[in-house]
């Protein structure tokens, strides 16, 4: 990429020059297309030659793939193609909801911790403690105690994700607060909330967009793990983790019950991670050089 292209604002290079982008980041463009594909599948699930994801058909159980059932059927005769497509909805809703929730909470807590000395040491010790607890186990405990529902699953996955966001935001705040323009704002008598919103927040945005994609991928993975272990979304919701959990007993005779949702899960997580790497290279080059 030429020097002039580098000097352009981010938006211009990201969306203005489609062809150079595709040439430079072929993986990222493919990943973006895969993510888009899954989003469309989730939105238009009822139109994608699916039937009722919960529709039992005992006469039609454990059938191999056919023209009527593209991915075959499970032990209750439910269409696996339908359930895999609807499972996309569950994964994406959980991923996006957890990303939004943990980024918003982490942003507020991180800005306050980075700016108010008194809060800093307390908040960071709490975050250290939360980070020491294995996230999957913490989420399992929360779901199993609060009862399985989509909402508890989202909250349970969000809590272990928050400390990383807080640390990230705090690190940005600590560098930004030493900048001359922030000192100037303080000298001019700007009040704290305004400094945070006008000067600190914009500096956090690139890193947070990148972090949001990683959180989204990690949340989809955790949701699948929780459901797979029996502490996730309620069994009547066709999530990929639930499908895989139900397919375990039939794995030797019908491995596709596990392999189709498993492959979908792996593919969407891979795509979101690659997209995150691409965004990081583009938006947060300081981070990109380090890892």
């Amino acid at each position, binding site marked *: 990429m030429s020097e002039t292209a580098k000097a352009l604002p981010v938006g211009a290079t990201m969306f203005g020059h489609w062809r150079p982008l595709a040439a430079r980041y072929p993986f990222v463009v493919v990943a973006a297309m895969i993510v888009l594909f899954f989003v469309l599948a989730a939105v238009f699930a009822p139109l994608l030659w699916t039937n009722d994801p919960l529709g039992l058909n005992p006469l039609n159980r454990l059938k191999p793939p056919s023209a009527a059932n593209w991915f075959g059927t499970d032990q209750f005769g439910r269409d696996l193609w339908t359930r895999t497509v609807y499972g996309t909805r569950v994964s994406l809703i959980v991923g996006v909801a957890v990303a939004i929730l943990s980024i918003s909470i982490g942003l507020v807590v991180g800005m306050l911790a980075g700016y108010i000395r008194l809060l800093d040491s307390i908040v960071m010790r709490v975050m250290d403690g939360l980070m020491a*607890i294995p996230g999957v186990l913490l989420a399992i405990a929360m779901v199993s105690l609060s009862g399985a529902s989509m909402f508890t699953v989202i909250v349970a996955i969000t809590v272990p994700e928050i400390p990383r966001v807080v640390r990230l935001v705090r690190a940005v705040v600590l560098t930004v607060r030493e900048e001359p323009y922030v000192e100037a704002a303080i000298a001019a008598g700007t009040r704290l909330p305004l400094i945070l919103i006008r000067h600190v927040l914009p500096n956090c945005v690139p890193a947070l967009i990148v972090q949001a994609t990683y959180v989204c991928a990690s949340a989809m993975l955790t949701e699948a793990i929780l459901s797979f272990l029996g502490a996730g979304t309620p069994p009547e919701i066709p999530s990929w983790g639930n499908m*895989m959990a139900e397919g375990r007993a039939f794995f030797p005779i019908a491995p596709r019950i596990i392999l189709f949702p498993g492959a979908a899960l792996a593919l969407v997580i891979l795509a979101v991670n690659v997209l995150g790497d691409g965004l990081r290279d583009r938006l947060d080059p300081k981070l990109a050089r380090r890892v």
Partner: protein
Amino acid sequence: MLSFILKRVLATVPVMGVVALTVFLLLRLSPGDPAAVIAGDYATADQIEKIRIQLGLNDPILLQFFNWLVKLARADLGVSIFSNLPVTTLIAQRIEPTLMLALSTIIFSIVVAVPLGVLAAWKAHTWVDRAVMVFAVVGFSVPVFVMGYFLIYGFAIGLRWFPVQGYRSPFVDPGLFISHITLPTLALSAIFIALIARITRASVLEVLEEDYIRTARAKGQTERRVLLRHALANAAVPIVTVIGLGVALLIGGVVVTESVFNIPGLGRLVVDAILKRDYPIIQGLILFFSFLYIALNLLIDIAYTLLDPRIRY
């Protein structure tokens, strides 16, 4: 040196305190009556009351927390609601398979990932580097249990090279141990190989730009010696740090892997406890794993000061 170690040890105290408080509050802050949740849908009022007394839920909350800390200090993690055995006993019974799986995964990952990372750094920006990094991204993204089932499908059911499930102790039959532990280790290693290879590449790449590497090459050191003795040795600290932090991932991974491969370790203990809502076990294992993680990272931090003379605090 001694004062650093002391400070570092003391710094873990508040962290452990937060962990203990979080695990304590989990039960108390959950919506509804935790005793009723634990007792299940068909419990009678008597049974719920019994559990409430067993967990001490009728006491004032500060007293509950104090009692809980006193018990923790005595390494008492409580008693399982169903089997009535102390949680520490249950952990001792189930720890061997988990430990073996974790060790074999860490060893295998390091043996594979460090050379891959060094190779990628040495051949930076060539197709070799790209291939290693693509592998790293894929390895990082494929979930452990998906990887596990694909491995079972290919190597256990398809090729019949390995048993589908189960665990054998290495102290009873080393051969059977290896055949049973291979697939779980491969499944769990993918994410670590990815993680370690990535950080190895990054830190070796950074070191390779140092002056002393140029000096070493200028004085005619073999490329092998430059890479291993000069580059890798100096890049070791971030690599070891990532391995230590990766233990958190490992713990989550072990729980899932043991379920996939039906290994009777701590992960299975947790999962069975979830299904039976045996809360003291879940609580005890969270504490156990968290403290293990804190202790390991403490040891790694202390090891730096002993191993790397440049690090002074």
